[in-house]
């Protein structure tokens, strides 16, 4: 094993150990609130991963992922509040609603690419945002829907539910990690290699016989699934769903988190999301104008590390671990080039 792989593996083990110890470690070190903050970071990083799957792996910049997040959220809220479903059927309804919506809108959206794709995804999400705001009987509009959460598991008399902060944390951690693992499986499979071929040059990909439209649609539906899971988790987490989470600003934040963290890497969105949410939490209690820092950070990262924090880290790692191989490990700079 190379030194580089050793360092990366050690980091991964440390990360896993930390995540598993959070419910006991964090209350002892800081306080219990931070456990739910870390759970929230996990949910949002799954949402940022859906942007990452599209942009980092198949080269489509979606500015409308909040639509599928919102469908996941409302699937859960409407399922529990109006249809009286239990935990798992509501979870399923949310994920199904988001994935089905991604399929239907993807049929149209992936016919376009680049700027046009970015714009039409915003347009779709805005249409449904305005619909959600007006159809108060279903969505509660900007006020949203509050609901009480049914238990996740019940065995006879004992129940496991989100009222236990530790159970809530582990449920979210397990779901997010399962989704990231699935995404890793896809991106390492032949399907994932085909995605990369489309990202790097769609004309060449179609000339070697790949179905570019079909691949883009597949990736789009998968990204809708990830966003839907994130939205459903967030509804469970907050016992709440609101149209305001479908606005284009929410999609925009996910794009920023994914690119700042490092598009095209598995952990990039997690790093980016954690960075920005931690800035928000750490600074906002002391200084009202914390979004100044968020803005400056976003700009500094894209200027100083155009391939994101994880990309920068990999360059650093390549230099310290394998000085002789630096030339080989430097990837072509035009990796994320723009189409004319």
């Amino acid at each position, binding site marked *: 094993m190379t030194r580089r792989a050793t360092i990366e593996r050690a980091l991964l083990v440390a990360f896993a150990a930390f995540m598993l110890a959070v419910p006991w470690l964090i209350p002892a070190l800081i306080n219990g609130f931070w456990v739910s903050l870390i759970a929230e970071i996990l949910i949002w990083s799954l949402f940022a991963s859906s942007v990452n799957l599209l*942009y980092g792996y198949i080269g489509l*910049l979606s500015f409308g992922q909040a639509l599928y997040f919102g469908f996941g959220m409302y699937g859960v809220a409407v399922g529990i509040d109006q249809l009286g479903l239990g935990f798992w059927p509501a979870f399923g309804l949310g994920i199904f609603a988001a994935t089905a919506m991604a399929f239907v809108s993807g049929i*149209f959206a992936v*016919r*376009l690419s*680049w*700027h*046009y794709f*970015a*714009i*039409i995804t*915003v*347009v*779709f999400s*805005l*249409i449904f945002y*305005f*619909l959600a*705001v*007006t159809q108060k009987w279903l969505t509660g509009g900007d006020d949203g829907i509050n609901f009480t959460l049914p238990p996740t598991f019940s065995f006879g008399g004992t129940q496991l539910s989100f009222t236990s902060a530790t159970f809530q944390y582990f449920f979210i951690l397990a779901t997010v990690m399962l989704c990231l693992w699935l995404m890793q499986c896809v991106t390492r499979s032949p399907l994932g290699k085909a995605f990369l071929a489309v990202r790097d040059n769609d004309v060449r990909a179609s000339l070697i016989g790949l179905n570019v439209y079909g691949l883009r649609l597949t990736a789009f539906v998968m990204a809708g699934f990830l966003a839907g899971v994130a939205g459903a988790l967030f509804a469970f987490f907050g016992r709440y769903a609101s149209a305001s989470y479908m606005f*284009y*600003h929410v999609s*925009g934040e996910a*794009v*920023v988190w994914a*690119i*700042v963290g490092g*598009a095209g890497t598995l952990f990039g969105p997690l790093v980016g999301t954690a960075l920005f949410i931690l800035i928000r939490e750490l600074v906002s209690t002391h200084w009202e*104008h914390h*979004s*100044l820092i*968020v*803005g*400056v*950070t*976003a*700009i500094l*990262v*894209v*200027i100083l590390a*155009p391939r994101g924090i994880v990309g920068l880290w990999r360059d650093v790692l390549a230099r310290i671990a394998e000085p002789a191989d630096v030339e080989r490990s430097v990837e072509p700079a035009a990796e*994320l*080039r*723009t189409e004319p």
Partner: protein
Amino acid sequence: MMHTLLLLALNGLIWGLIIALIALGLSVIFGLLDIINIAHGDFFMVGTVVAWFTLEATGSFWLGFITAPLFGFLLGALIQRIVIQPIRNVAALSIVATFGLSLILQESVRISFGPTPHRILPPIQATIPLFGIEYEVYRLFAAAIAVAALLGFFLFLNHTKLGTWMRAVRHDRDTAIAMGIPAQRVYVFTFAIGFALAAFGGAVAAPITTVDFRGGVDILPFCFMAVIIGGLGNLPGTAAAAVLLAFLEGVIQSFADPTVARIASLVLMSAVLLLRPQGLFKGLTR
């Protein structure tokens, strides 16, 4: 009923002319620099705020028509040098950078101007009877100013050396540089003029809308719609699309609520994107 329709259509037309100015700035920046400018709505907002500060400081609203675009031009040039220049050519990064810029502009205005919205009284108090109500003369005047500014900009683009340079660099950067055009300075100038157009639109619109640090958020999707429906990089098309969209929304608002009107224009835009991605006016103007 007929009067309401005409009134809302007129309001839409006037608002569309102002939006056309702002969208033109967006289109210029996009066409030449390939920058998707998320902060453009905030450039407009900065214009309204500069107009408000000018009015507070000097007592003259009209001075804002000079200070707002001037401030926008200088700040735009500065931003291009510091933020846009290092990340040129990678449109995805430009989205992140301008998103950061948008946060910085909004927060700076919130610090300096305050979080509460303010209104500017129309500098022309007179009203004229129109379609059964007393219509503000300033709105008609604002439309006239917007038309004059649009015409002025097109004259500048087509009949001055700098305007020709801008078109040349957009058309073929390498050849333009080979012909001795300072492309670098043209980039700075283009971004600055884009900001100045939006800020001028803000100053003109300030007495019609409210002055608020969030004033740019709603206007941004509308400007993007105008740019897309008009055809990316097609400047006269952008202006025409802005007027058409706002006019249509005005007409629809006379029999449905504003949100339905907004949804209708979004659906129209999806159709345009899918059926004529090159814009409605491709082939008519260039």
